[in-house]
C-alpha cells in the first residue's frame, strides 16, 4: 500500500517538477556539500581578490543547486554583482548565470531578458544560445500545458453551468 501511494506521488511530482528533471538532463547540478565547500573557502579567504573569486564561485554553485532557496540566493547575489561589473567578459558570465538562475526558478520572462542581454555582449556564445533555445522551448511547453489547464477549467465551469440549467 505504501509503495503504491509512493508510486502515485512519484508520478505526480514528476509531472509537476519538470523543471528539476529537465535541469538534470541539461545542466550540471550542485550538491549542498559543494555549496558549503564554497562557503568555507570564502570564510577562509583573506585578500580582496580571493574573496571576489570565491563569491563568484559560490554564486555559480548556488544557481546550479537543487534547492529553490539556494537558486534565489544565487539570483540575489548575481543581481548585486552585475551592477558592480567591470568588464564585458565578467558581465557576460554573470548575465548567463543570472539567466540560468531565473530559468531554473521558473521565471522565464526575466531569464529571457537576461539571456538577450548576454547575447548582446557576446553574440557568438554557444552556451548562451543553447540556454536561450532551452528557455524558448520551455515557454512553448509550459504554454501548451497552461492552455490545457485553462481549457479544462473552462470545461469544468461549463459542466457545472449545464448541470444547473438542467435542474
Amino acid at each position, binding site marked *: 500500500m505504501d509503495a503504491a501511494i*509512493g508510486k502515485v506521488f*512519484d508520478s*505526480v*511530482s514528476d509531472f*509537476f*517538477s519538470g523543471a*528539476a528533471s529537465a535541469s*538534470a538532463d541539461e545542466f550540471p*547540478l550542485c*550538491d549542498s556539500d*559543494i555549496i*558549503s565547500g564554497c*562557503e*568555507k573557502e570564502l*570564510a577562509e579567504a583573506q585578500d580582496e*581578490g580571493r*574573496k*571576489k573569486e570565491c*563569491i*563568484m*564561485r*559560490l*554564486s*555559480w554553485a548556488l544557481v546550479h543547486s*537543487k*534547492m529553490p*532557496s539556494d537558486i*534565489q*540566493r544565487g539570483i*540575489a*547575489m548575481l*543581481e*548585486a*554583482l*552585475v*551592477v*558592480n561589473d567591470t568588464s*564585458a567578459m*565578467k*558581465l557576460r*558570465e554573470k548575465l548567463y548565470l543570472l539567466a540560468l538562475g531565473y530559468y531554473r526558478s*521558473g521565471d522565464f520572462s526575466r531569464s529571457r531578458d*537576461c539571456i538577450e*542581454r548576454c547575447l*548582446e*555582449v*557576446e*553574440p*557568438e556564445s554557444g552556451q548562451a544560445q543553447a540556454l536561450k533555445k532551452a528557455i*524558448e522551448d520551455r*515557454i*512553448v*511547453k*509550459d*504554454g501548451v*500545458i*497552461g*492552455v490545457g*489547464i*485553462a481549457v479544462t477549467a473552462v470545461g469544468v465551469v461549463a459542466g457545472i453551468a449545464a448541470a444547473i440549467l438542467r435542474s
Partner: protein
Amino acid sequence: MSMEATELQDLSDDADYAASQQQGSASMMRSDSGKRSLQSEHEDAVLIYLKDNVAIHPTQFASERISGRLKLTKQDSVLFLSWIPYKGQTSNAKLSEKDRSLYTITAVPFTEVRSIRRHTPALGWQYVIVVLSSGLAFPPLYFYNGGVREFLAMVKQHVFLARSSEDQNVFIVNDFQSPLQRTLSSLELPSSLPVASGQSVYPLDGGSSSENQRRTSSDVGNRVSSVSQSGFRKQKSHDPTRDLSIHLLEKFSLVTKFARDTTTQLFSENNGFGSIDKRWNNQPVHSYPEKLSNIAEEKHHEIRHSYSENDLLKDDEISYIDVPADPLEFDKLSLMWGKPRQPPMGHKERRNDISPSIKCRISTEYFTALLDSEGRVVESKALRERVFYGGIEHQLRREVWPFLLGYYAYDSTYAEREYLRSVKRMEYATLKQQWQSISPEQAKRFTKYRERKGLIDKDVVRTDRAFEYYEGDDNLHVNSMRDILLTYSFYNFDLGYCQGMSDYLSPILFVMEDESESFWCFVALMERLGPNFNRDQNGMHTQLFALSKLVELLDSPLHNYFKENDCLNYFFCFRWILIQFKREFEYEKTMQLWEVMWTHYLSEHFHLYVCVAVLKRCRSKIMGEQMDFDTLLKFINELSGHIDLDSTVRDAEALCIEAGENGAASIPPGTPPSLPLDDGTLYPQEDDVL
C-alpha cells in the same frame, strides 16, 4: 521510509523546542524605547528586535536545518543584524560545530547591506535573503512562525528602505548606485523626491539619452551598448511570428508555473517523500571541476587587472596634480566690474557720518524718497539696484519685500495697496476656512489632506527652531507657519506641500509678521519657485542643466573635470538650488542673499551665478584633491556655514557681467525662477495617486 522521515522530523522539532526553552524565550520581543542593552555584543548597542526560531537550511533535508535567533541592534545610529545558531543540538550529528559557526552572522552593519529579498509564498515557509554590497548573500533566513513583514517594518524604521521598481519582493537599502539617490540621501530630504522618479535624468546632451535597461544601472547599459557596437554583431534573424507565439505561450506558462509552484511547495518543503530526496541525491555532478577551473582562470585575469588599478591609485596618492589655471582672474575683474559692498549698518550714529555718495542699506528715508506723492515706485530699477548692492534694513523689509516678490505692483498707490491687503485678507480667511471646516470624520476619508497635514506638522516643528522667533514649545509663530502652509496646500492643491517649502516661508513670516500678508508673499514666491518642487523634477533639472552650461562657459577646465569624474549631473548643487542656499548661511545672511536675488537686477537666474562663484572659489581644492562624486558631495555639504556672502555675491556679479548675453542664451527659456511659460494647466496632472 516515510514513517522514519516523519519521526526524524518530529524529533528535530522537539530538539528545536527544547533549544528555545533553553534560551528562555519563545516569542518575538520588541523594545521600542530601547531601554535594554546587550553587554555581550556591543558596549552601547541597544536591542531593537529579536526573533527566535529563525533557521537556515544548509542541505535539502529539513532535519539538518540550523535554528537560531535573529537580532537587530542599534549603536551610534547604525543598525546591525545578527543571527546566532542555538547550541547543544545533538540531533544534527552530520554538521560539526565548525560548520554551524560558519553560518553565524555577527553584527553586520546595515551600511554594508545592499538589499533584502523576501520570499513569502501563500503555501510553504517564508524566508528573507540579505545581500551585501560586496555581492555576497547570506543563506536564506527561514521564518517558521511568520513575521517577515514585521521584520521588514522594523528595519524600515531605522534604515531607508525602498521597494525595487523591478521586483516587488526586493527592498533596496540606501541604493548608492544612483547618483541622484545618493545626493538625496546625503541631503537628508528623504521625501523631496519619490524613489521611482530617481531614474529620470535630464538629457545633458540635449538630444539623445541611452535607454535605461532593466536590472542594471545606466552605466552598465551604456557599456553593454558600446561593447556590442564596437564588436562584431551577429545578424539576428528576426521571426515576428515566433516572437508573437512565444509571447502568447509565455502567458499560459504562468498558469503552469502557478500550479507547479503550489505542488512543489507542498511536496518539498514538508519533506514528506523521502524517495524524492533520495533520487535527487543520487544525481552525479559531472562538469563541476571544469566549470570551476574556468572561473578560476577568469578570476586570475581579474586579479591582474585589479593590481594595475591599485598601482594607478598609488601613483595618484603620491603625486600632486596640477590644477588648470582659472580662465577668469577674480581680483582684476572684481576691481573692474564688481562694486564694493558696504557692511550692514547697525547704528544710527554711524549712518549720519557716512557721506551720501557711499551706498549702504536702504533706509526708510531713502525708500520714502523713491515714492511719489501717491505712493508709487517711480523708478523700480533704481530701487532694485540699491537693494542689489546694499540690501535692506530689517525694519524696511516689510515694506520692500512685497514689491520684490511681486505681491505689490511697483506702480500701485498707497490706496490701492491698502485695498489689496483688505481684499486678500478676506480671501485668505476663505481659503483657510476650507481646511479648518474639515471634521475628523471627513478627515478619515480625505487621504491627501491627512498626508499633507502630517508632512507639514513634521516639518514646521523642525524648521529654524534655533532661531529665536521660532524657538520654544507652543510657539504661536510655528502655529502660523503651519496654518499658512496648510492653506497653501489647498490654494495650490495640484502642487500641494513639499519638503523645503517651510524653509522659504520661515523668513517671509518673520519679516511680514502678518499671517495673511505672509501667505500672499509666499504665493508670489511659489509662482516662481514652485517648479522646484514638481513631482517630475523638471524645474530642478532645467536649473541644473543651465548651471552646467554656465560652468562650461565660465570655467571650462572645471567643467571638463566634472565630465571626466562623472559629476556632470551637478546633483551636488541640488540643495543649493532647491532651497536657494537656505541651509548654507545663517538666517540674517540668507535674507540678505534672497533680497539680492529677488531684485532680478542683473539676471532672473542670479542664483546660478552664485553657484558658479562658490564652485570657482573651491576649484583648486576640488581639482587638486581629485574629488570623486561622493567626496565632492560631502565637501559641498560641509561648506554650509563657511561661505563668505559678500565676496561670493561680488564674484557672482562679476561672472554675470562676464557671461553677458552668452550666459543668458545658455539658460533655457522657462527655467525657474522665471515665471512659467503660459500653459493651460499650471501643473501637469498625474493619474497615480500618491
